[in-house]
Every structure is written in structure tokens, then in C-alpha cells.
């Protein structure tokens, strides 16, 4: 058995004159849940389509567990479970028949295929609908069918293109739960434009825009790039007066007043929270809210994808 690893080397993909993916290189190892983040059209899906062998890279290549996606495509594909964007499936088939078809295509024969389909149905809580045709199912169920076919052969690499897109909050929670459960011994790559998702399931995030890798970091590291990281926000009476006092503090770099909320940004390396709560007590301000900001992912995202680096 080869080492569990994805190695992408200088992947390029052109569609005519459009550069969809422009020199992506990265490595992913076991236990990593990698989130591809990026605006629409950033090249996330195209990258996934190349990793799964659907599209041929214009140049560059990738190894999936040591199998080259160009020279050894079938072996690479055997390692991978893939949920394409929108979770397409054959609508006129019943859930069970569809999963049995995928199982057989994945090399299960006869009874084994039936058993694999049954196991996937159980795993994704499809027990209520196995004999229903896929086209009659709700969006959430369809997505689960797509996930069921992706994990039916217990792949070591899972590539999920927008696995929670269009699901309601409960369904999102379920899918994320499932991803977390499976993550320990696999490589999971998901794409999303939901920032909260990165926080919820990933332990690594890559921001991609215009086919280029802009940031490769942990979700915590990503959030720490936010200018709001370690800032303190308070809601207080007479905010203008409080703002002028707080801006005198040596630990404060900047004070912003927006919609009644006062946000104090720390100077390099300073911790603000204690200082401000002391100031509140000393001055006897009437504070209705006081919180430490973790950082704002959406702001980091905007900054990275629109303004270059953070």
C-alpha cells in the first residue's frame, strides 16, 4: 500500500484563452481535511476535476497515493471517492440500484456490491428511501445519495465539491458531522464558499483566486490574519468620549466607532482585553457589551481575494 498522500505539482488548466488553474502546487497528507476556499470561478472545481481524473491538466500533474493521475489514472481513481458539484446521479434509478451500480463499477461483485450499497445506505441514513427513485428525493437526500456513492468503497481520499451547498442548517450539520467522523484516517478535500464551513470541519484551508494559491494555512492561522484578531469591541454609553480616552492607551493602535459599537485594535503584540476592562472599571462607564474578537474570516477572505496578501 502506498503512502496516503496527494501531491499536486504545478497544475495548469486552460479553457481556450481562460486560465482556470494557473500553477497550483500542494501536498495533503493523512488526517488532513483541506478546504478549498475561493470566489466563484476561482478554479476550485476545476482543480478537483483534475484530481479525480475527469479533466486532463493542460500541464503539470498530481499523484494520488503515488499513482499519477495522467499515467495511472484508473489506479488513482480507485483510491478516490468523489462528490461532483451538485451531486449528480441517475434520477430514474432507485437509491439502492444506483448505489449497487456504483459499487460494481468500484469492483465489488455480486453479493458484495449489494452489501456495500446496504452499508452506504445505513451510513448516510437513507434507510427510509432506498426503493425511491433519486429524482423524487429532496435536495438533502439527493446530496446524501451523492455522499453515499462517494464513500461506498471506503476510499482513502475523499474529494467533495461543495458538499453542503443548498442544504438546510440541520442537514449541513449532519454532513459536517460525517466528514469529521471520517477524517482521522483519510485525506478529505472539500471546496466551499461558506467560510463557517472551514471553521467547522477543516484543519487546513487554501484560498484560491484566479487559479492561484493565495493562502495556505490553518483556520486559526487564517483568522489570526484578520485585523480584528484580538481586537476588543464594546457597546457603551457616550461612545465618543470613551473612544477619545481609549485612543490614549499605549496598547491601542486604533479605535473605530461603527453603528454604536466601539472597536479597539491592539498595537503590535499587546493584549487589550484586560487593559480595557480595567479602564471600564476605573472610569465607571456603563457598558452593555464587551467582547474579545477572534477575527473575521469573511474580512480575511475579501482582503485576500481582492487586495492581494494579508
Amino acid at each position: 500500500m502506498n503512502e496516503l498522500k496527494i501531491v499536486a505539482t504545478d497544475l495548469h488548466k486552460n479553457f481556450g484563452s481562460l486560465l482556470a488553474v494557473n500553477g497550483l502546487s500542494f501536498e495533503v497528507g493523512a488526517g488532513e481535511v483541506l478546504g478549498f476556499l475561493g470566489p466563484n470561478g476561482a478554479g476550485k472545481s476545476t482543480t478537483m476535476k483534475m484530481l479525480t481524473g475527469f479533466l486532463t491538466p493542460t500541464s503539470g500533474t498530481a499523484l494520488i497515493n503515488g499513482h499519477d493521475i495522467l499515467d495511472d489514472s484508473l489506479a488513482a481513481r480507485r483510491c478516490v471517492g468523489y462528490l461532483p458539484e451538485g451531486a449528480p446521479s441517475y434520477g430514474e434509478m432507485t437509491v439502492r440500484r444506483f448505489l449497487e451500480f456504483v459499487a460494481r463499477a468500484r469492483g465489488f461483485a455480486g453479493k458484495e456490491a449489494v452489501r456495500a450499497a446496504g452499508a452506504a445506505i445505513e451510513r448516510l441514513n437513507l434507510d427510509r428511501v432506498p426503493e425511491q427513485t433519486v429524482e423524487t428525493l429532496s435536495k438533502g437526500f439527493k446530496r446524501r445519495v451523492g455522499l453515499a456513492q462517494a464513500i461506498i468503497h471506503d476510499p482513502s481520499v475523499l474529494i467533495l465539491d461543495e458538499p453542503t451547498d443548498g442544504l438546510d442548517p440541520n442537514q449541513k450539520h449532519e454532513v459536517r458531522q460525517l466528514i469529521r467522523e471520517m477524517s482521522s484516517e483519510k485525506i478529505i478535500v472539500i471546496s466551499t464558499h461558506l467560510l463557517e464551513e472551514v471553521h467547522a470541519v477543516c484543519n487546513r484551508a487554501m484560498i484560491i483566486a484566479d487559479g492561484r494559491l493565495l493562502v495556505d494555512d490553518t483556520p486559526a492561522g487564517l483568522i489570526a490574519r484578520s485585523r480584528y484578531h484580538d481586537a476588543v469591541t464594546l457597546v457603551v454609553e457616550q461612545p465618543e468620549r470613551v473612544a477619545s480616552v481609549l485612543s490614549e492607551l499605549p496598547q491601542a493602535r486604533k479605535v473605530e466607532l461603527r453603528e454604536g459599537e466601539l472597536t479597539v485594535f491592539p498595537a503590535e503584540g499587546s493584549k487589550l482585553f484586560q487593559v480595557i476592562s480595567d479602564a471600564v472599571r476605573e472610569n465607571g462607564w456603563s457598558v452593555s457589551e464587551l467582547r474579545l474578537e477572534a477575527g473575521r474570516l469573511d474580512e480575511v477572505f475579501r482582503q485576500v481575494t481582492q487586495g492581494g496578501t494579508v
Partner: protein
Amino acid sequence: MSGSVAAVVNVTRRELSGYFSTPVAWVFIVIFLVMSGVFTFYIGSFYERGIADLEPFFQFHPWLYLFLVPAIGMRLWAEERRSGTIELLLTLPITTWQAVLGKFLAAWLFVGLALDLTFPVWLTVNYLGDPDNGVVLAGYIGSWLMAGGFLAIASCMSALTRNQVVAFILSVVVCFGFLLSGLPMVMNLFTGWAPQGLLDVIANFSFLAHFAAISKGVIDLRDLVYFGLVIALWLLATTIVLEMKKAD
């Protein structure tokens, strides 16, 4: 090797069951049977001829197939593209060729089934007279092979587009060209400027000529090879088209 056979069989099975879970199959079979009956008994003057053979039955098959086979073949790949399942199918550990062959075989078997269901015509002719059943069998084989040729063309046209109507029209046009390529109407386009060698090749492309030979009971190896080659080449073209424009 057995693995790749299993892969093709799996695709064929899925595709075939797909036909029967939608009205497509039943509509096709009913129309095929009704039309072949109409052609045989009214236009073909089956009874009036007073000859115990199935020539009036088979002679209209090329024209029947011209419209009905593209109707079956148009969905082969256009539908996969439209619904996005092409991405699912072609990222499974099966080759594009296996998928192309599997889907083609399903459609071909299906047309074969429709053809088999015309057996009452055969029973009728045996009841009325004493036909040469060897010739009848040859006619069926020839007809099925010709349907395979049409289907392979339709498969390739279907791979070109996500729109089934476009696939249908392209298929009819190309099939029509192949059907008529031996007739003066088409040959006149080429005579005068094309070399004789090319003219012979074009004339030999005609489905009609090869089918006519088989349906008269003459199973010539060259005719079998011809249809085999036509099918293989168009399926190969389908594979190439899919490889080139998967993402579209």
C-alpha cells in the same frame, strides 16, 4: 480482462434498466412495431405480392431507422452531459472506452429487442407460405447490424452536444449521408472532381448496398466486416470526442 468485461456489462445493465424505467422504451417499441407494420402491409404490399418472403418488411428498415435510431441514440451522451452524471461516470475507475461501449451495447440490445418483437410478421409469412427462413434470419441479422451502424453514429453526435434535439438532427443528417452515399444524388456531388478511388470508397460506404446484400440472404464476410468497422470507428470517434470535450 474479466474486470473490463464486468465494467462494460455493468454500464450496459444500468443503461438498459434506465430505458425501461422511463416511457422512452415503450414509446419506441410501439412506434417501431406500428410503423414497420404499416410499411410492410400497406406500402410494401405484403399480401398483394403473393411471395412468401419478408422483403417488403426489411426494405423499409433503413428509412425507419433513419429517424427512430437517432431518437434512441440522441440521449446516450447528451443526457449525461445535461444532468452532470457524465462527471460521475467518467471518474469511476472505468475507461471512457468501456463507458462508450457499454452504453452503445445497451442501446443496440434494446433495438434488437424491438426488432425481435416483430416476430408476428415472421409467423404470418410462415403461416401463409413456405419462406426460406435462412434468408429471413439473414435479413434480421443485417437489419440489426445496420441499426448498430446508425446507433454508433448517433452515439458520436450525442457526445458532441448537451442538447438532445441538436444530437437528433445531426444524427439524422449524418445517417442520411451514410444511407445514400451510393446513390446518384450523393455521388453527383463528387463526380467530376474527386478521383475514381475516392468515388469507389464513397460508393462503398452506403448502408443500403451492404444491407441489401445481407437481406437477400447473402451473408458476405465483407458486409459483416463493413458494419463492424463502421460501428467500431464511430464508437472510437465517440471516445475521442468525449475525451476532448468532457468539460463542455
